[in-house]
Structure formats: C-alpha cells, structure tokens
C-alpha cells in the first residue's frame, strides 16, 4: 500500500512495479555469485584459524605444509607488510593475526593448493605455537578494571585528562543538549531501566567468496561478492602495496550483505596467495568461518532513564550505552548514542556511549548500525511510561514526536520528516483495533536512521537502436538496478524495457562508495537522473543541428526533441531512437555522465506494530501479525520498498527472539552454523503488511529517501513491547528466547 502526501510531479515509470531485471537469472540459477568464478589453472585457498579466544602466537612453522605435493603457496603474517594508511591498520591485523590471535577464528595462515583436499591436509601440517591468554567476551566484564586487556597501548579517547592506564574502552562519546538534571527535576514520573542485547549476525545466505589473480607484471584481477568493489580495490591495494589502477575488481551477484560485506576479509589473502603462487586462487568461506571470522553486530548493555509530566510530555531523557565491537575499536555506539532519542522532541537530553573491545570477531555494520539496540532500550521505557500516564502508546509518541523544526537529540534541526505521518497512519490502521486473544500482546515502536549519499559515478550510453545502457558502480543488494533503470526511463521518456543497467568493474567508472547507508537509490538515482539530463542536453543539441535552429529552442518531452519558442520553426519531433540512429552523422556517440559526492539524503522514520502470542508453558513466541509504516520519500519500485520493509522486520524478529552468539567458558563460539544459530524461516513469520508513506525528500529530484535500514530499527522494541504485554512482565534481555521468557515468567510469579 502506498500513500502519497505531498508529491506534485506525475510519474509514468517511477511508482510502477515492472519485472526485476535480475529475476530470471536468479530463479534459473544462471546468476553468477562469488563462488561461481573460475579460471584456468586455478588453485584452492584455505585459511588456518586460531582455536583460542586470546593467545600470543609464539611461532608458525609452515615448512611441512610447503613441502606437501600440490601446495603452491603458504602465507602468514610475514607476507603482509604494515600498510601506510592508518585506516587500514585494524583490517591488516584482522585479515592475518600479528603477534596475538584476538578471537576464536582469527586467521593465522593460509594455503593455496591444486585441490581442496591437499589444501586441507596442508593446514594440518602447519604448526602454530600459542601461549593462551585470559580472554573477555561480555561487554560489561570487559569494562571492569581487572579485565584482561586486549591492547596494552589502548587508552580511552574522549576522556579528559587522557587516561594513563590501558583499557578495553576505546572511546567515550557524549551527545545532548539542555539541562538534564533540571529536566528530571521537572518530571512527575521517572522510569529507569537496564537492557542487554546479544550479538547477531547479518545472516546473509551467500558466504564470502572470491577469485584472485595477480600476474608477474604486478597487475591483478579480483572477482568477489561484496557491497563495494571500489572499497575492496582500495583496501586490497593498500594492504598489498599494489597501485590502485593496477587492480581491477569485479563484483559478482550478491546473496545478501546487510552491511556485513562492507569490508574485506579473504580478498587480500587470496591476492597474496595468488601473487606468491603466480596462479589464480579461489577462496570461499564455510558457514563456520562466516560466523567465527566475519563481523556480526555488537552486543550491548544500555541504561535508559526518561522523565515525563503527568500529561505525558517528556521533560528529560538520558541513555548510557556500552557496545562491544569485537577485538577492535569502532563499534557503532556513537550512532547508537546519536539515534537513541532521535524520534522525540526533548528539551533536555544526554546520551553517553562507550566503545569497548572484547575477544570476539571485529563487528561489521548491520543495517542502521547501532540504532536497533538503542531503540529497543528507549522504546521499551517509552512503552512503560505511556502505560504509567494512562495514554495509548501511539498518542504518547505523537505528543512527544520530533517534527519539522525540532532540534534533534543529535544536534541539527529537522527539516520535513515523516515520523508523525507514520504514527497517525498506524492509529487508523485496522491492525491497531483488531482484537487480541489470551496470552497475546500488541507492541508498537518507532525508529530513525540518518541515511546518506556519498561518492557516485554513472554513465549512460545511448545505443544506435534507441535503447540505453546505464553503467553504475554499486552492487545491487536491494533492487538498485530496477530503480535506476526506472529513473533513467522516466527522465528520458522511454519505456523501462528499453534500458538495461549493468554494474561495471572498478576500471570503468570513478569511485563509487560502498552500497550502504541506504544510499544507492538516493545517490546513484540522483546521478542517473543527472546523467540522463546530460544525454538529453546532447540529444537536444543534435536535433538543433539537424533543424539548424539554436539549441535553446529545443525541449525534451516524452522521449522526443521538440522545437519550442517563437522562433524555433515547425519541425516533426525527433524521438530518442531517431536521434540515436543519426548519432554518427551528427557528431558521434551520445552519452551522459554524472559524478557527484551526493548530499541531502534525508532522514527516515518508521513505526512498527506487532502482535505476538507467548506460550506460558514453553516460553515460545509466535508472531501473529506485523505491520510496517515507513516514509520512503518516493517509492520508485514499491515492491522493492515493501521488500526492504519486510526484510528489516524479518531480521528484527530473529534478533529479538532467537539469534545470539553463544560462547563457551573457553571463549569459543558454540553455535557457528544455522542449525544452532537460528534465523527466522518462512514458517516463523506471518505475512508482513506494509504501508509506504511518501513525504518527499527535498534533496532528491524525485523526493527519494533511502529505505534499506530504518526498517530494522523498531522491530526489537516493538516485539519486546508485544511480548512484555503478552507475558505480563517486562523483558529486558534480547533475544527473548524460550528459556529467558520462562525465567522471566517464573521470577514474576515468585514476585
């Protein structure tokens, strides 16, 4: 369902639901994913990983492995020189352990051999001497003064004076405005609670995979599944000392990323093996490796305190957030702190974030990184406060909602935003008034994400038959080929079927940032529209030449150049196909280009509503009904927008109810597989209903806002509010798996 509020432009292609351009390839198995790349003479790579959570690597003996027949290369830390770029240091340590293994699964050595069997045998022949060190897994434990220290040189930044003692707290961040103490003093009711969330993985179905080929001339090619092949090129070039222009990276189709494929893990290792062996090397992660050695999101520990007047108006809010980001600094706690209260108009607000390191794999972005956990904690307290003051949860949120002109909790003043629209629509939706049965509960929650634009470069080539090839540089993780094709067709005034969009390799275009931040439909869409306008200008120029009239006297309408104005004369309009056919005679090929560092992405809000049933005997939760209300600015292809909304909700259901990294006392991950790490499957989910609201983004020609991330922000809280309502007890620890719910029920019964 799409509901438009203020858009004036009439669209012909945008807003329709054409067939997806990658559909047939994907359902027939013809699409090429990361592991589908092959090359003549290819070797198979495998990585040896640390079995310890924290250990000093005293020595690595690869001599026996190197002598094994069929082994063509072995690499260790000695094959990776310290990069010059400061931003690559952590990645350098993460792709191959240096003096210490920092987590269970940390890469220690790698081999390339003529078969997987030989490579496996070679791994067994590598002898690593470890000195096992004390480890720490939990974020709160890691912050204690006597916790095992991961990095002896780490001093907490953001604290004055700078500490002299080493700590696992890498950074302290603080945001806010007003007078927090005065705000709480003005409140009639104050609720303060503590929450925990466990680490969840993005759960993409396609494991990381790549094929690397580096020749003796120093030129390299890499095929891989990634959210950003330009990022892969630049990171690998920096880690291996290769000129950027000499490394060409081609992105495969991608079987999910959700933020998890925005960095490199195996790609530099495959390149190093290929360079050493002088043969192409293919490296494909197992699911076990994906869980142990790529980046889940942070686990967190959060305290929230909110004060309200009896009339329900918030007077002050405070949150202290502690996120562990694995063995390296850079957890998304800063974004958690910035987004915590972004949905509310608060006179007094303070958020403090602690970025903590632990002996876990380095966290990587996961849709709206840092925001869902913060929203879980804040929206849980908001839910309690609404009950306490006797207001329904939507009215309570509307009373306190951020609007155009609200000074946001992270600083800037909001422009036109859609939070209020999502809440108002939720109020009138049939879901909200539907009856509930025994042991059932309904929860609502709101969420916010920034969205951004970034560096983008596209080319649009007019073919001689009047069809159009659009070349862009962002792996398609959520329907960007369809939406860019539609925007090109819309602007050029030709049918969708006349445009094909391809994702070019890194040699074909200028730098395109990673597909993240919900940026591609916004930024690459903007660039596509501008590239189309560039081509239109050129086509109008060709028509002007043919008619021998000034270029200014030609306009572009409905896919045709037309004479316009008092002195233009009368000529039969020339279609895009007619101009394309005459391109050679009128000046050569016609192409449009656009390069931009796009800004003005426009923030995004959503409200989610969910009904659940809790089995009091087993603690099992069944999700009965789910509705997403989100502002999309302008939904270019509504089916994809609905898919993004539904996907965020589905991943949120997993994070809220089941998904969890479980560690043993030895610091080793106990559930590195989909049997024991339980993501939701179709039978766990109801049909997720969606309502698309369209509050146009003034920063985009068609009003587009990114939609890929906001949809995962409210579900944890919405489901927790529903479960708490059904169970009659507040749940404060995710996931709300059956054992946790049973314990909460029993504790509640005991009083």
């Amino acid at each position, binding site marked *: 369902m799409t509901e438009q509020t203020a858009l004036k432009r009439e669209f012909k292609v945008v807003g329709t639901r054409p067939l997806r351009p990658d559909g047939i390839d994907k359902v027939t198995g013809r699409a090429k994913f990361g592991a589908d790349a092959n090359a003549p003479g290819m070797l198979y790579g495998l990585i040896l990983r640390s079995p310890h959570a924290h250990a000093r690597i005293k020595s690595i003996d690869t001599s026996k492995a190197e002598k094994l027949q069929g082994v063509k290369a072995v690499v260790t830390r000695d094959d990776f020189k310290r990069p010059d770029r400061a931003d690559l240091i952590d990645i350098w340590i993460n792709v191959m352990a240096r003096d210490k293994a920092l987590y269970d699964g940390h890469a220690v050595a790698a081999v390339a051999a003529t078969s997987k069997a030989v490579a496996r045998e070679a791994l067994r022949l590598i002898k690593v001497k470890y000195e096992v060190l004390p480890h720490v897994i939990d974020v709160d434990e890691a912050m204690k003064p006597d916790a095992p220290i991961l990095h002896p040189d780490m001093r907490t*930044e953001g604290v004055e004076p700078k500490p002299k003692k080493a700590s696992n707290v890498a950074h*302290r961040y603080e945001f806010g405005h007003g007078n927090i103490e005065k705000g709480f003093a003005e409140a009639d009711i104050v609720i303060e609670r503590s929450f925990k969330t466990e680490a969840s993985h993005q759960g993409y179905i396609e494991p990381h995979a790549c094929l690397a080929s580096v020749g003796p001339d120093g030129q390299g090619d890499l095929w891989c599944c990634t959210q950003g092949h330009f990022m892969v090129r630049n990171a690998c070039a920096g880690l291996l000392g290769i000129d950027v222009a000499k490394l060409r990276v081609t992105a495969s189709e991608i079987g999910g990323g959700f933020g*998890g494929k925005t960095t490199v893990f195996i790609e530099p290792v495959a390149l190093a093996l290929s360079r050493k062996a002088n043969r192409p090397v293919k490296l494909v992660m197992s699911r076990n490796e994906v869980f142990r050695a790529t980046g889940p999101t942070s686990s967190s520990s959060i305290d929230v305190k909110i004060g309200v007047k009896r009339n329900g108006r918030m007077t002050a809010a405070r949150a202290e957030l502690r996120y562990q980001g694995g063995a390296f600094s850079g957890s998304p706690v800063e974004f958690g702190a*910035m987004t915590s209260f972004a949905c509310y108009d608060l006179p007094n607000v303070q958020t403090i974030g602690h970025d903590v390191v632990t002996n876990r794999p380095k966290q990587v972005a996961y849709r*709206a990184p840092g925001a869902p956990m913060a929203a879980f904690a804040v929206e849980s307290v908001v839910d309690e406060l609404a009950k306490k003051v006797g207001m329904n949860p939507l009215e309570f949120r509307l009373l306190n909602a951020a609007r155009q002109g609200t000074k946001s909790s992270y*600083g800037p*003043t909001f*422009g036109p935003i859609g939070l209020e629209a999502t809440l108002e629509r939720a109020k009138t939706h049939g879901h909200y008034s539907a009856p509930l049965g025994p042991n059932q509960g309904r929860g609502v929650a709101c969420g916010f994400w920034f969205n951004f634009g970034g560096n983008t470069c596209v080319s649009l080539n007019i073919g001689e038959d009047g069809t159009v090839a659009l070349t862009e540089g962002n792996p398609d993780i959520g329907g960007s080929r369809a939406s860019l094709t539609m925007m090109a067709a819309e602007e050029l005034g030709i049918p969708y079927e006349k445009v094909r969009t391809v994702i070019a390799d890194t040699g074909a275009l200028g730098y395109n940032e990673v597909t993240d931040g919900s940026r591609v439909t916004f930024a690459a869409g903007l660039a596509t529209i501008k590239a189309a306008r560039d081509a239109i200008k050129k086509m109008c120029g060709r028509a002007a030449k043919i008619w021998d009239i000034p270029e200014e006297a030609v306009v572009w309408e409905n896919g045709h150049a037309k004479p316009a104005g008092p002195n233009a004369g009368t000529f039969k309009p020339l279609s895009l196909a007619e101009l394309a056919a005459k391109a050679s005679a009128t000046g050569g090929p016609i192409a449009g280009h656009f390069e931009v*560092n796009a*800004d003005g992405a426009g923030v995004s809000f959503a409200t989610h509503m969910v009904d659940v049933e809790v089995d009091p005997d087993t603690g099992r939760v069944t999700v009965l009904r789910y509705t997403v209300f989100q502002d999309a600015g302008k939904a270019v292809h509504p089916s994809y927008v609905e898919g993004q909304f539904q996907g965020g909700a589905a991943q949120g259901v997993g994070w809220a109810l089941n998904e969890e990294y479980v560690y043993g006392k030895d610091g080793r991950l106990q559930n590195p597989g989909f049997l024991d790490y339980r993501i939701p499957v179709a039978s766990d989910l109801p049909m997720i209903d969606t309502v698309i609201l369209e509050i146009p983004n003034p920063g985009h020609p068609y009003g587009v806002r990114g939609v890929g991330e906001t949809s995962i922000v409210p579900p944890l809280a919405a489901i927790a509010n529903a479960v708490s309502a059904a169970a009659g007890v507040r749940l404060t620890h995710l996931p709300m798996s059956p054992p946790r719910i049973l314990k909460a029920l029993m504790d509640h019964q005991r009083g």
Partner: protein
Amino acid sequence: MAKIVLWGSLKQAADGQTEIEMDATNVREVLDTLAERYPKLKPQLDRGVSVSIDGVMFRDAWFAPIKPDSEVYVLPRMAGG
C-alpha cells in the same frame, strides 16, 4: 560570523568548546579554521567528519556554502550498513 557547533567527541578535542564563532563561508573554511585553532582536532578532521548545514548532512563537501545565520554542526562521519 558563522556559529559552528562541535558535537559528540569533537568538543573534547576543542578544549571543551561547543560553540565556535568564525568567519567562514563554506565547509572548507570551517574545517581549516578548526584545525588551525584546535590542533588536537586535526586527526579527527583528517579521518573525516560530517557537517550538517541547516539540517542537511554533508560529507567531504568543501564548497557547500554557509550563510552567517546557518545552523552548522560538525558531527562524526556518517556510515551505514
């Protein structure tokens, strides 16, 4: 004079200053002036920041114009998933 608000961890590196007045007409002038007045800020500025001008977020946009009455926030660099 434009009023620039430093946010989050940035204010610690600017000797605790939150609001800074300066003659700046674009983002580049803001960043250059901040680096000159507060050398401790330079590493963070070099790593990258976001600048919000009247509610619109910019990254690496040196020539984005700033009016004397603009609301300008220098914020941590935005990223996403």
